[in-house]
């Protein structure tokens, strides 16, 4: 665990030093929320569960949940995922 922490810290320092986008270096998801109608998740790892009320998406070590109603996955590709519907919330776990 200590080794992983160290590696993480080194990467973050490198990212700050080289002014690279963090989501690229640290393998973080980039989430764009458009009003309450659209959520775009880039750099995801797959769908964990989905339904009309919530969509759970695996992102790296964590998981993002989009809450809402009448949710539809407008498109699903290997690098990005677009959720549409009436969004009520977004949470990390």
């Amino acid at each position, binding site marked *: 665990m200590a080794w992983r922490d160290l590696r993480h810290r080194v990467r973050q320092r490198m990212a700050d030093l080289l002014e690279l986008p963090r989501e690229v270096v640290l393998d973080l998801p980039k989430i764009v929320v458009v009003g309450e109608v659209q959520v775009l998740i880039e750099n995801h790892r797959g769908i964990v569960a989905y*339904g009309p009320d919530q969509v759970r998406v695996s992102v790296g070590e964590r998981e993002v949940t989009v809450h809402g109603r009448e949710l539809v996955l407008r498109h699903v*590709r290997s690098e990005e995922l677009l959720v549409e519907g009436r969004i009520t919330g977004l949470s990390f776990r």
Partner: protein
Amino acid sequence: MFRLTSYLRGFVSLVLEGEALEKFFNMAASRGIPLWNLRRLNRRRAAVQVPLQAVWPLRHIARRTRTRFRIQKRVGLPFLLLGLCRRRMLAGGAFVFVIVVYLLSSFVWSVEVVGHQSLDPQEILGVAREAGLRPGAWRWRLRAAEVEGRIADRVPAVAWVGVHFKGTRAIIEVAERKFPAPADVRPCHIVAAKCGLVKEVLVLRGTPRVAEGDVVEPGQVLIAGEVPVAVPGPGVGQEQPPPGELRRVHAAGLVRARIWYRGYAEVPLVEEGERPSGRSALVMGLRVRDREFVLAGKRNPGYLRYHEEKLVKRLPAWRNLDVPVELHIVRRYELVPWRIQRSPAEAREMAVQRALEAALSGVPAQARILDQQVNEVPAGHPPGLVRVWAQVETLEDIGTEQYF
């Protein structure tokens, strides 16, 4: 753009059924198969749209994730084409239709001549027919320049010709050559058009009947279109006209005469009248039998003097039914009086100008004005009036042709 390409390449709506649908989607996404409009129907079922070419690889994924799918809807051009392949006669009919329309439009259906005036269009059409331009000719084989050249060669009265096509209509546009009018050789006299004093006579053809200083009346023969027939006499250069034998010719010549024109004008010293002030009022009223109701505007605009224009609209009488209702639209224009007081000199100047204008109104453009005279008539009745006679003397050609 995205929608257009997806339509061209075709896509299908699938209904999936299985326990581990998430796994199916992740696997599809990781293999680069795009999924659209993913929607959960219930716990075991979901609907999704995928491109047509992704259906085959999805079968393997479905088998590995123990999912079953069913194609619900097919959308796009490939399916349309497939449908057309099944209905071969329909596709063939559409194709034949296009070909027939194209073939029919490549024929000339009608030929038209425009721009002709005195020429007979049938003549031009005949030449065009010889050159190949006729209803039923194949358009692509025709050379417009060839037809133009043929018409220009064969019809000498055509100065320019242009052939162009408008759909299935061929239009031959021609411009005619203008020929000078043939010389008039009909025998005639030159007679006087006006009354005047002959100043000079110049005979080009014919026999003079008047001399300088004669007074002529309208209709009087000035140059007769009759000449004695010349018979060679016994001596060289001597010609003796036999009496009584005359030849009729087209008389020509100039007979200039002095003509007088008179004009009269009178101008009062004091003039009065009324003119519109520019103000007007509109009244709209309804007349029922003998009663009048004002609908809009004032019944009385308060003008001292006015001139009115009345427009009456009524319903058309139908059989013996006459509706006793009329719509009156009255426009009243206010009039104001005016009064002009002139000095005698002013009035005289004005009268002179008007009298001269009156005299000159009858003078033709080519006449030469020799003299202008103005006489004031002595004041009589009524006293406040200036009266002027003007006289213009001109020298002009008074001859006109009169045919026998």
